[in-house]
């Protein structure tokens, strides 16, 4: 199934839910990136905490396992001084068969201001936003649909890296570093919510996006996404300024779409030989967790072109910016 969001475009996420990046304008994305720059500085202080969301309660509901997204969201909320209710699904009533709606109602009854939701079903975050319209909903990954904060932090990491190389202050560059930037996304596009969010962010910001992967792992509607499809993977690697690798998601049944993992590595893995085709200044990204030796060679993952660790460390400031903007009031100025 394909998930293409359409319709309204938000100019800012101030006071809004963050469900999908497809509905955000370029200005809305740049605003998040700029505010995140301020939070990078906050994260370098001795006291890495500001009182912006003091007294707010944020529920962190992860119905699917996660390490970095959950940790960085909860760290972000705490650094903004919000109280965090964290539900460990494995030891909760969800295991007794409680429905999503009832779980949300229970958490809401405790008095919450925002929900960070990860769920295996596409559209779960939007569903929850209808159950609790007075609560801000931040999508932390819903099935194969979207993972908006990953798209934002990937865009943030690219902008930060390119700006630093050129000696620019990245918060003054807006979207200009993305104009004409050639970004190649490789792997399981079909099952990847990261790919959908990345593509939406990169295209809004003005980049050219190409996808590569086994035909069985490309959605049929890929042409409607405004991206091109690589005919020749090696050529595409030479073309790219940025290569974003995706994880082979065995839990979403990717295994049955490729004959063997070895064959995937042989045709689409970023091996050392293939990495040698990249432009010297090209960047290599991966949203984690990596299957080392399958979609990316260990040496490439730890090599000089990889900015994978930066993606992880940028998770906190970008998620702080999202929480801060989303939970801010819309009231008139004084």
């Amino acid at each position, binding site marked *: 199934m394909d998930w293409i969001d359409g319709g309204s475009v938000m100019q800012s996420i*101030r006071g809004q839910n963050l469900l999908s990046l497809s509905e955000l304008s370029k200005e809305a994305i740049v605003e998040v990136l*700029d*505010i995140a720059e*301020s939070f990078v*500085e*906050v994260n370098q*202080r*001795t*006291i890495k*905490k*500001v*009182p*912006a*969301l003091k007294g707010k309660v944020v529920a962190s509901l992860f119905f699917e396992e996660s390490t970095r997204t959950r940790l960085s969201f909860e760290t972000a909320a705490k650094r*903004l001084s919000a109280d965090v209710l964290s539900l460990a699904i494995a030891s909760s009533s969800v295991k007794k068969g409680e429905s999503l709606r009832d779980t949300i109602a229970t958490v809401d009854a405790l008095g919450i201001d925002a929900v960070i939701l990860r769920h295996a079903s596409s559209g779960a975050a939007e569903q929850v936003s209808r159950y609790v319209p007075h609560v801000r909903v931040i999508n932390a990954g819903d099935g194969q649909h979207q993972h908006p904060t990953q798209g934002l932090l990937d865009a943030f990491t690219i902008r930060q890296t390119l700006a630093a190389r050129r000696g620019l202050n990245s918060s003054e560059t807006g979207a200009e570093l993305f104009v004409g930037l050639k970004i190649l996304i490789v792997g399981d596009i079909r099952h990847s919510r990261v790919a959908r969010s990345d593509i939406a962010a990169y295209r809004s910001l003005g980049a050219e996006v190409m996808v590569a992967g086994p035909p069985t792992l490309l959605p049929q509607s890929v042409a409607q996404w405004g991206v091109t499809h690589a005919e020749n993977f090696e050529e595409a690697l030479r073309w790219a300024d940025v290569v974003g690798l995706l994880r082979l998601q065995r839990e979403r049944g990717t295994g049955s779409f490729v004959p063997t993992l070895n064959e995937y590595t042989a045709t689409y893995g970023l091996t050392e030989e293939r990495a040698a085709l990249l432009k010297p200044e090209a960047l290599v990204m991966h949203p984690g967790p990596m299957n080392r030796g399958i979609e990316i060679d260990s040496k490439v993952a730890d090599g000089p072109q990889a900015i994978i660790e930066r993606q992880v460390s940028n998770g906190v400031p970008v998620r702080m910016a999202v929480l*801060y*903007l989303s*939970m*801010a*009031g*819309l*009231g*008139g*100025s*004084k």
Partner: protein
Amino acid sequence: MNQNQLRQDHASGLAFFAKSELLSGQDVERALKRMAHEIIEKNGTLEDLVLVALQRGGAKFGERLQELLSEIAGLGVPLGLLDVSFYRDDLEQRPVPNSAETTIPTSLEDKTVILVDDVLFTGRTVRAALNALSDWGRPHVVQLAVMVDRGHRELPIRPDFIGKNLPTSMDEAIVATVEGVWIGSMVAQ
């Protein structure tokens, strides 16, 4: 800035429309010189002094005060920049401000900190700044220097060094820069 020039506030979608000039650039410069002398007079020595200018309006005043103190006393005083957006208590009521750079060049532990801002109004920005400062240490003393005090305080906060006292009404707006001070109103764009 000429009289009819609009100053935009992107966060609120409002723009400043200047009605009249209250101080010229020269008046502002004279006031800053006097404030620099008052700072030296009050503190005796410039050692342990740190200027912390509030973003964004206070930044230029902080720079100019730093230059004047160095000209008058021949001693460099460190200048920090502080953005208090994340320390405000009115996130619910007003649009999110666009945050700016914060750089505090030195520990503030046991220092004499002089907060510098353009306009003192309700005192909420200064309250947020006091809150923020404590994250960089415990200053010995904190003093406040503002170019314009326009009244209408909502908190028990009082400036130590004032460029100009300007009684205003609540619905008026004041813009103070090193090039001059204007009174006017905020209008929707």
